[in-house]
């Protein structure tokens, strides 16, 4: 009835060990937790080596050094992180951090303005002015437009929420909460399916109750 595969047994026992936390913190959970943390930290190192360094740095360098030598520049910048272990030169790690921050900001500012601002503005105006949608279609568009404006006003920090701003911000928070409620329900459904998947593993692969 039970699986003869030792790996399935290990996976099932670890699953039950993690589930035991629902009762209370116990040594069974503690073993699983420490194994999980330790193994995943080791796995992350192996993954960084095999998925990042080897294909993106070593392979191109060894394959065609003449063409790919500029890869040495980010590699050297990255190596500066090692100075964290040399207190005298530990300030050098600020260089790779600064490069990473600068690159990250530069790469994200324009796409953020494009997608999170301009595209959203276009959609809001398109929905609120879609007269051809008529009746309910236009009404939903206008409601959504009001939601955008009032929610924006809630996140205005330069004035106290008084008078008209207070009314607008209060309406905005209602829109936010309705949105969060919908998101909550949607995500809970997803989480339940994850639980079903795990229980299915125990019943199908481990104790073969479901075939």
């Amino acid at each position, binding site marked *: 009835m039970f699986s003869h595969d030792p790996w399935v047994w290990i996976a099932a026992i670890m699953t039950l060990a*993690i589930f035991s*936390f629902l009762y209370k*913190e116990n040594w069974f*959970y*503690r073993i*699983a*937790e*420490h194994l*999980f*943390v*330790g*193994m*995943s*930290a080791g796995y*992350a190192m192996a993954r960084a080596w095999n998925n990042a360094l080897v294909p993106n740095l070593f392979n191109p360098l060894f394959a065609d050094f003449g063409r790919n030598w500029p890869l040495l520049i980010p590699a050297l910048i990255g190596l500066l*992180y090692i100075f*964290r272990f040399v207190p005298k030169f530990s300030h050098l*790690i600020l260089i790779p*951090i600064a490069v*990473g*921050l600068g*690159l*990250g*900001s530069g790469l994200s*500012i*324009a796409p953020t*303005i*494009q*997608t999170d*601002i*301009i*595209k959203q*503005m*276009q959609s*809001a*105006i*398109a929905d*609120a*002015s879609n*007269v051809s949608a008529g009746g309910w279609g236009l009404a939903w568009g206008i409601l959504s*437009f009001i939601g*955008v*404006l009032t929610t*924006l*006003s809630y*996140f*205005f*920090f*330069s*004035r*106290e*929420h008084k008078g008209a701003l207070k009314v607008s911000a209060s309406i905005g928070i209602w829109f*936010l909460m309705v*949105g*969060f*409620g919908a*998101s*909550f329900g949607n*995500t809970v459904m997803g*989480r339940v399916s994850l639980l079903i998947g795990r229980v299915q593993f125990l019943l199908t692969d481990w104790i073969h109750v479901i075939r």
Partner: protein
Amino acid sequence: MRTIALAGLVLLWTAWAAAIPGPAAAPPPQPATVAPPSDLAAGDTPNDAGQSISLTWRPSPDEALGVEGYEILRAESAEGPYAKVGYVPSGFGSFDDQAVPRDGRDFFYRVRAVGAGIAPSEVAAAGPARSSQQWYNAARTNALVGTLLFTLIVIYFIQGARRGRHLFIRRIAGLAAVEEAVGRATEMGKPILFCPGMDPVTSISTLAALNILGQVAKKAAEYDTPLVVPNRDPIVYTVAEAIVKEAYAEIGRPDAYNHDSVFYLTDSQMGYTSGVNGIMARERPATNFFMGYFYAESLVLAETGAATGAIQIAGTDSITQLPFFITACDYTLMGEELYAASAYLGKQPMLIGTLKAQDWSKALVGLLLVAGAALALSGPGLRQFVLRLLSID
């Protein structure tokens, strides 16, 4: 003898049956002739990095007779030889050849209507067309204008803050709880747990979280309350450690800094979550801070913290995780409130100036929205104009 006679009869019958002519085999159906696609035009793909030519044509009017799609053929001279470089199903009248061998060289194209039961019919060659790369993507001018405008507003407010101009920021409800939460941990003699999110240091929410960590660390140093900061990202860990150490030094308590208080757990999302859960269950912190960007682990963390009886303050700009923090935490900084909190607590001109710039940019967006919607409602032509102005290819 009878067997031989029977075999002879069978042979005779077989030969006779073979000699009788059967019904004439139907001649293979002639493939239908369809009108070819027309008005083929080829030209450089605009706003791209080169090596791409865009084609447009008018589909065959006889598509209903069995045209399944169009083959795109390319040659280096009008006479050929042509080679197939693409295929689009029927109903489409455009194709981008993104595998042009070289920029600046002439190429000719033909488009052929094909289908199982039709004779291929192709339009006359179009060309020559040359691909080239553009330095400037004109389709994204609106994004450039937006970026420049926002940058100018940011510079203006940062300069104002640096010159000492008073920039008002309203108090955020969740912030009042920070001091109360640290005080509670001190009274109970229990540690404060601070999770700086799951994202790397390049994430804006992680930077805001680290800023708040600095302020929390100062208060922890002041009250001599133990601080526990587990990290998922090695770089965030490095920065967090430096921030906490500096906060203790600033308060004049560098000796009170515990080297084990800021540590790296694991890179794995759920590995980190189970580790933090274990810490919460064993060490029972009086106060939990979840600041930064979180994913599916948000509810697991916040629920465990709530079960241990800790006061919990969360702050994230992860829209999908906010509902979980709102339900399971005592205070939640929503979206931009996280950045505002970071600026409010930090009191640095750079942060306050940026926050003010964000505020006025939002006001500008609101005004543009109202003006744009009013224009768009004035007539279909104006609506198209406004939407085109905001379109991004």
